């Protein structure tokens, strides 16, 4: 990066560090932070909407829909995310390709399963074999986001489902008495009041989602932890101009700070939202006076 980086062995510590920290591989590391942030930013709203619709489905009066919603919540919630990621992405990918295969290559005669191999017609490949590497990358991101959103959507659905039950019955009853339709009660009373009960659970979920990003690597995305492991591991002089011992601790420390910062800032943000939502509602936390002493 810097002109003096040609001969790193000869450099003083500080200059050495500047060179070391600006190697191409470190830029991949830095980029991965942005990647993670981007994925989080996209995943969270999708997961939330999965959760919202999951909850609506689960409490639907239409039995099959309700079973679908409840099944989704129970099954996806039941499986550890790691285990899920270890096989679900591949299954999802194969599922998409299978669907495309059925649609695009109706005349294809070769079996799709040949022994262990999964082979669809070339036109059905996702992404196409001719696609540039970036498309492959984007596709991987898409799969990862869908998988993440599915998993966290199930938990969000559960939280929202519970929050909907927590809204005082009298509030809904009154709306009913005023002739609001179920639809109106839902959107005008239940949903606005539900958020106060849901937000603590959802913010917990968001924190867990942030902390689940290291699992992105299982989904084929090089995340911050992958790079921290990679860069922090012992490097011998044969393979790098910047040999060093086991520096994982320092890299992990950097990650720790990154994650703590994420937590801190999202807590601040969520607190603001919570204040908006609880406006006017009579709960201990919203008491006019200072924090209440419970002990």
């Amino acid at each position, binding site marked *: 990066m810097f002109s003096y980086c040609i001969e790193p062995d000869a450099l003083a510590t500080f200059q050495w560090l500047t060179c070391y920290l600006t*190697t191409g591989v470190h830029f991949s590391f830095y980029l991965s932070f942005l990647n993670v942030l981007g994925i989080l930013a996209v995943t969270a709203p999708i997961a939330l909407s999965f959760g919202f619709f999951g909850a609506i489905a689960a409490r639907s009066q239409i039995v099959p829909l309700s079973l679908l919603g409840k099944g989704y919540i129970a099954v996806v919630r039941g499986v550890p995310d790691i285990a899920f990621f270890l096989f679900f992405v591949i299954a999802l990918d194969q599922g998409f390709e299978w669907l495309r295969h059925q649609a695009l290559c109706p005349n294809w005669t070769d079996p799709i399963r040949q022994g262990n191999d999964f082979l669809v017609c070339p036109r059905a490949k996702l992404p196409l*074999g001719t696609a540039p590497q970036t498309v492959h990358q984007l596709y991987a991101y898409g799969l990862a986001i869908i998988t993440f959103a599915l998993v966290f959507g199930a938990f969000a659905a559960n939280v929202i489902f519970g929050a909907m039950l927590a809204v005082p019955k009298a509030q809904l009853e009154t709306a009913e008495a005023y002739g609001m339709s179920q639809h109106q009660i839902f959107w005008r009373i239940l949903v606005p009041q539900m958020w106060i009960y849901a937000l603590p659970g959802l913010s917990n979920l968001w924190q867990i989602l942030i902390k689940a990003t290291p699992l992105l690597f299982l989904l084929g995305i090089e995340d911050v932890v992958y790079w921290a492991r*990679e860069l922090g591991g*012992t490097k011998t002089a044969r*393979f790098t101009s910047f040999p060093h011992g086991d520096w994982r601790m320092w890299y992990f420390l950097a990650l720790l700070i990154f994650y703590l910062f994420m937590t801190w800032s999202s807590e601040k943000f969520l607190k603001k939202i919570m204040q908006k939502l609880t406006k006017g509602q009579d709960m201990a936390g919203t008491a006019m006076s200072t924090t209440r002493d419970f002990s």
Partner: protein
Amino acid sequence: HSVVRMGTEGAYPPYNFINDAGEIDGFEREVGDELCKRAELTCEWVKNDWDSIIPNLVSSNYDTIIAGMSITDERDEVIDFTQDYFPPTASAYVGAAEAADWEKGVVAAQTATIQAGHIASSGATLVEFATPEETVAAVRNGEADAVFADADYLAPLVEASGGGLVFIGPDVPLGGGVGMGLRESDSELKEKFDAAITSMKKDGSLNTLLVKWFGEATAQY
């Protein structure tokens, strides 16, 4: 195949690793590029986690595995291998001192490797870590008496340790040579690569690369 996607792990020097520039580098990178050239194929490199490297191959997310994968019978049942481009390898023990007990003591190995399987059936107490890095660290910090891993992986570490780590015990030949993994249905591609490897073996260019990456002492064709 318009473009052949080559799957590798990128965390197993000197076979494959990420260099300072952030690119895939190592013995296999050079061999792979040369093979593609000789087989007149356009190749693209893809990184994939070791755990799911075979499942992703069979589900056609890339077309070859070139990741220091030893040819074993179990693997051969699921995928096809080209002929080996690296002679049968040896695994070795490394301890903190010559006297370390590799026979009955605590031996570290990476989870779910052939080395771990070997130790499990030996008389030693196996302790498994998720990454190779941690297995070596376990010897350094005294959790394990010895680490058992691919000799080629250990050699540069021992060399760089300045006496902190030493080879102990006998080398153990495990697995066949290292070959390129392909889908069983992809025999056309397999033939192309086989031919390319043969030609590299013949004109000695493979040996040149072996010496470049593994040193003079390594086995050659």
